[in-house]
């Protein structure tokens, strides 16, 4: 007898696709927005129920679509980790939409507002599918849906800059998905399977017999590189700062917080459910991911230090934070995976908080985007200032905030027994240098927004700031909720880490 909650993953994908279709009929932006937010709330509850039920029983389950049995039919699968991540994604998307409301109204034409929410619905559907899918080709198809929706929300603010950013994003994404698809095709021609449960024994057998060793290394590399390009791992990150820095606030928040993570989840599934982490390590792919992750952590921070544009600075910080995730994955151990998943959740809340608060600070400074003009913005809009401070300090790694726990669990995973010493030294050095660099650019930015005195004037002496700024209610709700979650993640990380560790074992 199937337990009823096992239907929920399918419901989530279905509801979000259905909302996307219904939204095409709604021409009123406000109603479309309400529908999308309601859909996200419902999906968050459904995924939360799945997470708690599976975690309480310590099980994972498979849901065969249309009741076709395994080798023919398509399957969804969920355990605590997948459902937890899906819940996080719903919440973050909802908060980002709430927090970016003011900018959305300004940046997008009123008659096109509903189109923006269609893309959000599709994005949610593809993220759920990436979380829950058990089939490589379905994964590929939803990667592409995700890409097209993500590109559309970048170009929603219809300026020359954003269209240029979109086309660069599109080209890099297509390179990534092409390489990934080629890897999947090779795996399919070797094993004859696309479903992960059937692939796993086939790949294990290949490793045991030692057959097809080079093709396996090549295709594992291609899948990892393909997904790494899409999730902006150094040196494939070149598209990210312009795309995330120039889009409207809600888009930047969703892209940085959620979209990058969708691809990483598929990568985690490939590493755990098609191969095993040890096999990926033995192919040498793990070491490559580790080194690139460490480079990203340092390189992204260096560029963030040099960036005068506030949103682009935060976007470069995303490059560094994605590096943390890949560092955890590259260790190729269960602890490393768990640390990477914790970082996914921590960053999913912290980065949108930063983007949303920066959006508020920029609005309070007469739409000036350079950090120089944000002087005293925290005093003009205290809510945004507090959000930025909490997010920035979390990125630096202040104890009791989410970013600190990430660094702690990553460091612990790197110090575990069985990790080669060069990997251990590289990881710890990268974490140390990156934290230092984070402090170097976040602390001055935080001081800058709380500075007193007159707001800076433009080059011609013109004043950008006219009177005090009143943030709208939804912005306040979003910033308060995300700040609270960042603090909670930092203070009560232990139960969550236990849940993740048990969930990774069930993957």
């Amino acid at each position, binding site marked *: 007898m199937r337990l009823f909650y096992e239907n929920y993953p399918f419901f989530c994908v279905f509801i979000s696709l259905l909302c996307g279709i219904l939204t095409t009929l709604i021409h009123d932006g406000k109603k479309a927005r309400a529908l999308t937010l309601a859909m996200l709330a419902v999906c968050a509850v459904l995924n939360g129920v799945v997470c708690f039920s599976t975690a309480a029983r310590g099980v994972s389950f498979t849901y065969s679509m249309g009741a076709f049995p395994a080798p023919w039919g398509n399957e969804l699968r969920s355990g605590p980790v997948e459902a937890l991540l899906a819940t996080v994604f719903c919440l973050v998307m909802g908060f980002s939409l709430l927090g970016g409301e003011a900018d959305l109204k300004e940046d997008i034409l009123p008659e096109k507002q509903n189109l923006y929410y269609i893309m959000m619905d599709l994005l949610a559907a593809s993220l759920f599918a990436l979380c829950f899918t058990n089939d490589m080709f379905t994964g590929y*198809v939803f990667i592409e849906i995700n890409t097209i929706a993500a590109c559309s929300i970048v170009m929603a603010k219809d300026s*020359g*800059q954003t269209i240029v950013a979109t086309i660069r994003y599109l080209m890099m994404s*297509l390179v990534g998905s*092409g390489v990934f698809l*080629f890897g999947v095709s090779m795996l*399919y*021609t070797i094993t004859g399977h696309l479903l992960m449960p059937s692939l796993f024994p086939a790949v294990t057998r290949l490793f045991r017999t030692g057959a097809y060793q080079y093709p396996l290394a090549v295709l594992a590399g291609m899948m990892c590189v393909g997904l790494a390009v899409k999730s902006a791992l150094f040196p494939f990150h070149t598209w990210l700062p312009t795309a995330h820095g120039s889009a409207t606030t809600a888009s930047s928040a969703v892209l940085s917080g959620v979209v990058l993570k969708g691809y990483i989840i598929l990568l985690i599934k490939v590493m755990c459910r098609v191969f095993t982490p040890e096999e990926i390590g033995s192919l040498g792919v793990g070491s490559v991911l580790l080194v690139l992750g460490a480079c990203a952590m340092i390189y992204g921070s260096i560029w963030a230090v040099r960036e005068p544009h506030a949103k682009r600075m935060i976007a470069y910080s995303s490059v560094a934070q994605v590096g943390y995730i890949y560092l955890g994955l590259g260790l190729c151990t269960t602890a490393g995976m768990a640390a990477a998943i914790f970082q996914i959740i921590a960053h999913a809340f912290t980065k949108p908080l930063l983007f949303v608060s920066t959006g508020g600070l920029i609005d309070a400074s007469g739409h000036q985007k350079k950090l120089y003009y944000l002087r005293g913005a925290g005093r003009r809009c205290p809510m945004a200032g507090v959000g930025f401070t909490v997010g920035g300090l979390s990125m630096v790694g202040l104890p009791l905030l989410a970013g600190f726990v990430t660094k702690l669990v990553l460091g612990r995973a790197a110090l575990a027994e069985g990790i080669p010493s060069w990997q251990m030294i590289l990881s710890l050095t990268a974490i140390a240098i990156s934290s230092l660099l984070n402090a170097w650019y976040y602390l001055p930015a935080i001081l800058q927004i709380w500075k007193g005195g007159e707001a800076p004037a433009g080059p011609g002496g013109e004043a950008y700031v006219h009177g005090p700024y009143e943030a709208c209610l939804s912005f306040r709700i979003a910033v308060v909720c995300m700040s609270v979650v960042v603090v909670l993640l930092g203070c009560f990380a232990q139960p969550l880490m236990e849940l993740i560790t048990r969930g990774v074992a069930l993957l």
Partner: protein
Amino acid sequence: MDINAILQMLHANRFEAASVILFVVGLGGMLFNRSLFKKVVSMGFMDSAIFLFLTSAGYVEGRLAPIIADPAVTATMEVYSHPLPAGLVLTGIVVSVSFTAFGLALTQRLYKKYHSLNIDEIMMQAQKSED
């Protein structure tokens, strides 16, 4: 290994070899061409290469498409080639076509705005208009 053996191996894997060459041509074109239009065309090359690779995996020389025209004849598996890769390729083609359309629409938009197809020139102009 002598040249004959290599040639024989290439002949036996001619579809795979052709698709890898096409794939690299497409990938290089997407990364290094400066013209947006050529980038979109290169994307088509890359996707076609993957489709060639997949279809050749399902195709068996001398076998038929798995369609039972006459219900009276009992079907045996040995007569037919593998239909699943063709299904995958169909899905892939749909994805590829929609991305080509999206890419071309963006290119057209940029051309109307900046009167150029060269990505470097467009980026320079966009940068200027921002400052």
